[in-house]
């Protein structure tokens, strides 16, 4: 998979939030075999300096970081947060989130396109968290995005791919655009399904972090994306409505 000219061998991106401990986060990243983890920016206390310890941990992981603008509800917030993230993390990558609805965390796609245009013009390489809407996707590509991150389902819902028809249409409409399913993945079979449909990768966080055994779940997701991609390349059969005997009928005994 290639994103903004960078070859990635793993098709699993992993979030870093909500793990039982820093040690389990580290072990989960290793077990997932991911090359990219997502991170964010939050207020730092001069006394506690919690962010300094976390940043040291992430640097030791030896993976790329994809900073996000999580929690931003306006274009201005998202653009300023992206500018701050670029300086701190030293990467032009930004997972652009402009949230439009507090209950579903559905993206404000109007603000998203506007922010993507501003950030692309400033040299950012934007990974927009979007819906499966074809027109929005087209506008994001026009704004300069080379990667799309459509949601599977609302963030942390674990509901998998909610709108299969819409996601299939998105994949078919933009066949050469790298697409990473972001949000809503709950179990490895959801990830495998996304890859089977031809999506390039998935981003998973809560499904691993909140599993009873996160490290083992990270390994399960690593296997799932590999299986899903292999299946996609192998050309899955088309579903059909009626049964068809798989054992040859010709030569059947007449008893």
């Amino acid at each position: 998979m290639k994103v903004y000219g960078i070859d990635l061998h793993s098709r699993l991106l992993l979030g870093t939030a909500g793990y039982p401990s820093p040690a389990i986060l580290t072990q989960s990243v290793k077990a997932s075999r991911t090359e990219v983890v997502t991170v964010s920016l939050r207020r730092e206390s001069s006394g506690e300096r919690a962010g300094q310890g976390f940043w040291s941990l992430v640097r030791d992981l030896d993976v790329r970081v994809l900073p996000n603008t999580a929690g931003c509800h306006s274009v201005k917030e998202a653009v300023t947060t992206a500018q701050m993230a670029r300086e701190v993390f030293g990467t032009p990558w930004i997972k652009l989130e402009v949230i439009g609805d507090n209950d579903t965390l559905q993206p404000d796609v109007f603000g998203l396109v506007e922010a993507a245009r501003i950030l692309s013009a400033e040299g950012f390489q934007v990974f927009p968290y979007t819906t499966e809407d074809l027109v929005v996707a087209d506008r994001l590509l026009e704004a300069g995005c080379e990667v799309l991150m459509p949601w599977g389902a609302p963030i942390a819902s674990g509901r998998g791919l909610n709108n299969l028809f819409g996601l299939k249409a998105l994949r078919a409409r933009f066949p050469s655009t790298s697409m990473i399913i972001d949000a809503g993945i709950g179990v490895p079979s959801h990830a495998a399904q996304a890859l089977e449909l031809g999506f390039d990768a998935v981003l998973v966080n809560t499904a691993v972090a909140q599993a009873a055994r996160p490290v083992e779940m990270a390994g399960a997701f690593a296997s799932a994306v590999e299986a899903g991609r292999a299946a996609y390349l192998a050309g899955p059969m088309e579903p059909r409505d009626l049964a068809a005997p798989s054992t040859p009928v010709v030569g059947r005994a007449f008893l």
Partner: protein
Amino acid sequence: MKIRVNGVWHDVVCSDVASVLKELGYGDAVVATALNGVFVSVGSRPSARVSDADHLEILAPMQGG
């Protein structure tokens, strides 16, 4: 003067972002700053003037999804 740092009011003596960071004990911490909603890069902190009632945000790396 009084400025709001990460949502909390502080009395500070210094009048530029770089000096305020030192005064508040951030020292060499890896942080990003925004003054009144506008990003202030590391290089421009010494010349970024801080005035009474300004809002300074000081952010650092954190877990994210």
